[in-house]
């Protein structure tokens, strides 16, 4: 278990961490997600004790560790550049931490062999670091940091130096390994897919602040603000005014539209208090060319952008620009074509980070995001 309370860190005049606080329960993986320069790595260094915070507390396993030096914190750290010792072979790299604990040689050998087996690197034992591939180095770094049975495992962009295919394979494996060992982990990445695959909880970082913290589902489907919405790919953001409020739903008038456009939104508690706010819709949740859902708009295709999963189509409907995700085969329009758009009321959310009262209804399958580009 780890708890951070109001961590503040400044480098010179620049505040890199502003009042950061969160708790990771035992065995959970917390992912810190955000662009570079957001303060994520600094936070890991503070947890490990390599950098001292200017204010706030770090609590590991219910013990305040503010003044405990890094060598006594029992924290495993997987560095972005792996930080493997080039003058030692793989076995000695992994055994390094165990030898410091004055364990018997037999026990050390057994532990190192076991972890090497677990990570499929047994045959690399006698190799030196510069003889290894990126993926192998990554496994050795992971083995070295978990063999000491740390209370907390910190991982700083562990897959960022690998090629995309290997990264995809390893992110699933890394999660399995962390879960097998049962260690509490804090995992830093800038990759949304990686965060979704690995994390139990995600904290979205921007400029030293946590923009939103929650489960994968929370941040993905209930973004709290524009930054998070854009970050998770829910980049259709519209400003609206609540004009009607009934038992089951609210009616919102889109402010930026050229003519009055009304959309139906689930009944969120916040809409009772706040009349004007931003809403987001995932591009995957908008149907193109069909009027199947309650919310229907009419517009013109403005742009067609090829992406990994198919096409991203920008449609202008009465001045509202909406991105729609479609597969290449299902799309037979060209730029300038008029087209119908429709979306379910459950797929539009006010940017407040909360769920609606009538929650419980599952999303249609199509809105489970595979990746955000």
């Amino acid at each position: 278990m780890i708890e951070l309370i109001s961590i503040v860190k400044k480098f010179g005049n620049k505040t890199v961490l502003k009042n950061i606080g969160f708790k990771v329960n035992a065995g959970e993986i917390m992912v810190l997600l955000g662009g570079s320069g957001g303060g994520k790595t600094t936070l890991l260094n503070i947890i490990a004790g390599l950098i001292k915070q200017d204010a706030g507390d770090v609590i590991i396993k219910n013990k305040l560790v503010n003044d405990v030096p890094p060598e006594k914190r029992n924290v495993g750290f997987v560095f972005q550049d792996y930080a493997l010792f080039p003058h030692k072979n793989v076995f000695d790299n992994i055994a390094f931490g165990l030898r410091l604990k004055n364990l018997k040689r037999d026990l050390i050998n057994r532990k190192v062999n076991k972890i090497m087996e677990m990570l499929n690197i047994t045959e690399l034992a006698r190799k030196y670091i510069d003889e290894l591939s990126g993926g192998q180095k990554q496994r050795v770094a992971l083995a070295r940091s978990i063999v000491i049975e740390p209370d907390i495992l910190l991982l700083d962009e562990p897959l960022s130096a690998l090629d995309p295919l290997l990264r995809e394979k390893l992110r699933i494996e890394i999660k399995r390994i962390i879960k097998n060992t049962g260690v509490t982990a804090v995992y830093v990445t800038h990759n949304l897919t990686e965060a979704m695959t690995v994390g139990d909880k995600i904290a979205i970082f921007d400029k030293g602040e946590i923009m939103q913290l929650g489960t994968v589902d929370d941040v993905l489907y209930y973004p709290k603000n524009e930054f998070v919405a854009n970050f998770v790919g829910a980049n259709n953001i519209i400003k609206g005014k609540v004009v009607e409020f009934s038992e089951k739903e609210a009616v919102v008038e889109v402010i930026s539209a050229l003519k009055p456009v009304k959309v139906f939104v689930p009944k969120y508690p916040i809409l009772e208090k706040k009349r004007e706010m931003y809403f987001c819709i995932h591009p995957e949740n908008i149907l193109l060319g069909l009027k199947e859902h309650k919310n229907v708009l009419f517009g013109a295709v403005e742009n067609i952008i090829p992406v990994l999963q198919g096409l991203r189509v920008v449609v202008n409907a009465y001045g509202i620009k909406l991105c729609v995700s479609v597969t290449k085969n299902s799309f037979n329009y060209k730029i300038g074509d008029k087209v119908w758009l429709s979306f379910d009321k459950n797929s539009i959310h006010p940017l407040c980070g909360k769920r609606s009262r009538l929650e419980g209804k599952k999303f249609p399958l199509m809105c489970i995001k595979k990746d955000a580009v």
Partner: protein
Amino acid sequence: MSAFANNRTAVLNVIMIFGFCVFALLIICPLIALILNVLQDIASFKVLFSYHVTKPLVLSIFTALASTAISTIAGISLAYLMEYKKIFFRETFDTLINLPFVLPPSVAGYLLLITFGKYGLVGYPLSFLGIELMFSTVAIVIAQTFVALPFIVKSTRTAMSAIPSNLINAAKTMGASELLIFKQIILPLSKKGILAGIVMAYARAIGEFGATMMVCGLLTTLPIAIYTSALSGEREVANILSLVLISISFLILAVFKKVMKND
């Protein structure tokens, strides 16, 4: 265009020929001169085993070993201090450590005299304890250490600064103490730089002349013996001593090259 390019090539060629002439004149010619001098009187080789040669040779080899050993320990610790500890006036400190690189040897010798001499800053209190440092073997070691130390500090520091800080951080998180990190990470990874520093320091120490001359009293090291024998007309001794010193220098250069090549 091509005429212009040809002109430039011609200028470059002239400069290269000039460089080679300087090299031939200043390095090749003196070596040939020495070999010719030695060959003129083959019988003079017996001087090699005479008192005139062996005494300064032994003195030089051992004082240089002692000063290199002191410089190694002091140099590594100073490099560590400057690289890994928070110290005030780091830049000033760095300049002071490198001072012997640029200080004229006679100034160095004079400074040592007014520091360790009988009435010097350190020498005076020591004289009360009956300790006299100047004009002894110790004085030679002090003078050699003075000039050799910066070689080791500089070379070790360069090697230490190349060690990625995350290696040290990784060792820390695995529970390593400062001493252990020094022994197991920093020292092995800066080994090459340290060895190179040691080789250069030994070369500098064994060849030290100016400062040693001022503090050695009646003792003669190899370079001083060459100076005195050349001045007093004992050419055969000067020839052989020079040959010995040049051989040592070549040997040191060979070791240095090997150290730098081995990874």
